[in-house]
């Protein structure tokens, strides 16, 4: 990607369940590799802050939101498929 804007993420997790822990690790690793120094990650625990989960319409955990750059993107799951995640987040061009 050419634009060097900051990526802001919000990750909804459910306590420290396996799926959530996995997603957190995967996201952090991905950011470290591909977005060094230009990412912000906010982690929200749905059990601690259910009101936010309701407002945001979070049904499944973990759910990752890309708040910036716009438009907002939403990915559900443990983020195991790094290529798919990067594609969705706009970190690789579709031409491979």
């Amino acid at each position, binding site marked *: 990607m050419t634009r060097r804007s900051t990526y802001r993420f919000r990750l909804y997790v459910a306590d420290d*369940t396996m799926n959530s822990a996995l997603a957190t690790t995967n996201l952090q690793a991905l950011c470290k590799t591909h977005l060094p120094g230009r990412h912000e990650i906010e982690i929200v625990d749905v059990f601690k802050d259910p009101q936010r989960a309701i407002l945001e319409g979070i049904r499944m*955990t973990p759910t990752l939101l890309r708040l910036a750059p716009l438009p907002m993107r939403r990915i*559900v799951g443990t983020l195991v498929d790094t290529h798919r995640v990067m594609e969705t987040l706009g970190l690789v061009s579709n031409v491979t």
Partner: protein
Amino acid sequence: MKLDHLSSPALRKAPSGITGFDEATGGGLPRGRTTLLLGGPGSGKTVFSLQYLINGARIYGEPGIFVAFEETSERILDNAESFDWQLGQLQRKKLLFIDAQPNYDLVQTGDFDLCGMLAGLELQATQMKARRIVFDALDILLAMLPDLSARRREIYRLHEWLVNRGLTSIVTLKAKADEPNSITQQPYGFMQFMVDCSVILNHSVVAGVSQRNMRVQKYRGSSFDENESPFVIGDGGFDVAIVRTLGRDDAKVTNERVTSGIKRLDTMLGGGYYRAACVLITGFPGTAKTTLSGAFAEAACRRGERTLFVSFDSDGTEVIRNLASVGIRLNRYIKTGLLRMVSARTIVGSAEMSLVRIKAIAAAHRARCLVIDPVSALSNTGSELAAHGVGQRLVDWSKADRLTLVCTSLLNEISGQSESDSTLHMSTLADTWIHLSYVVQAGERNRGMSIIKSRGTAHSNQVRELILSNSGVTLADIFTAGGEVLMGTMRWQKESAERVEDEVAEVAGKLKLVTLDAQQAELEVRLKAVQTELLAKQLEKTLLARTTASRKAVILHGSVRMRELRGGDAPKHK
């Protein structure tokens, strides 16, 4: 103590408020547990669960949450508008709709769980003190999970959460419509083993007619009606048709009589029909079945009782016009609102559906008397088995609601006099069975009426002739002569012939009497003459005897005297 309370059915069950369902399950859904609702597309899963929540909130004061995975809550509410549920004021406080449809463009990589949703629900359920919850079309969400073990895991997670929260819940899942019994083979079959109650909804088409059935497949810790029960989705939502279960209180019976509208028929029945009885009038086409039921309706209205007249054959206005020709004037009662005519030609669908409509209309009209003309039309559509149940439920319902029911049943001219071929089996259910027939004789058809049965009343065994004229309906004695039944003009002829004969005989009798009188008088005169003659003879005889005696004396005395006078002989010395 506490255990006793818990084991009482009322506390262990959460009533659904759905007609028939609570009866079939002995009180409703298992309280604090999960019920699985399975069915094919359009089988009524959403309607059932929505109605369960609405009734809970409105009738039983139990707020509820509806989690929609397939349709948006907006659309569900739109659809709900077509029922008379009036959701408007309920929705704010006691009913919560949550949209949980997955976005189609949602990207998913790897496994996920439902904790997000449950965390949100937890908060909302606590806030609104929810007691009931519905997960509609959970399969949509489950299908997104990567593998079977993940699905299984999430179902268990959901189930555990529900049980811990003590919510009485319904989870609906799609099932193949054509094989509802093989659900255990389907992807979420194991759910059936997990939940405490499982209900299968089935929508099939039998002989071109839609037929809905509900079956409770399992119910832990409770007895339940195990049979398939037909149900319909009417204006009020679900209506499950069940026949009264054993052990339920019998409807109150009464000795009150209501008139049939025809005086002589009342006399034949010993005073009329019983209140809340089921009267069946059978007959071939044109035997005045409608007329007889119209007479009943008119009489009911005259007493001021609200009456519903359901006609399957013709429009209400036609019935009124036709009945007016025999002096049954129903129009005035239509105007006052006592009588409601319903043309059931407009009711399409299964017999079950028709029955539900009739019930709804009768309830709305607050009817006390009901006429269904002809009830045999109910069995025209749908399967025979279903129709039989409808007949039973019709009678059962009318008795429970204390409606006096008069229904006519059309007999097929070909099938003969027997009514048993009718799939409704009304003849066995009816309390009073009146049969109308034709007697064809000497070039005319005349209507004959007889009472085949009338439970609990002495009734006439006579066949009567039913005469329709523009002044009304009357019954005439039929004429039997030499074992032959005469009706119509032949009866009249015979009657007048008899009358003439009577007169002749009477005159002849009088004549004979006069003759005899004369003869008697003559004899008496003769007798007097003879007696007089006899007396004369006797007198004569006496006279004769006397004269004879005196003559002898004279003769004897004379000879002595003569000898003395002659003096020649001395007789003393001879």
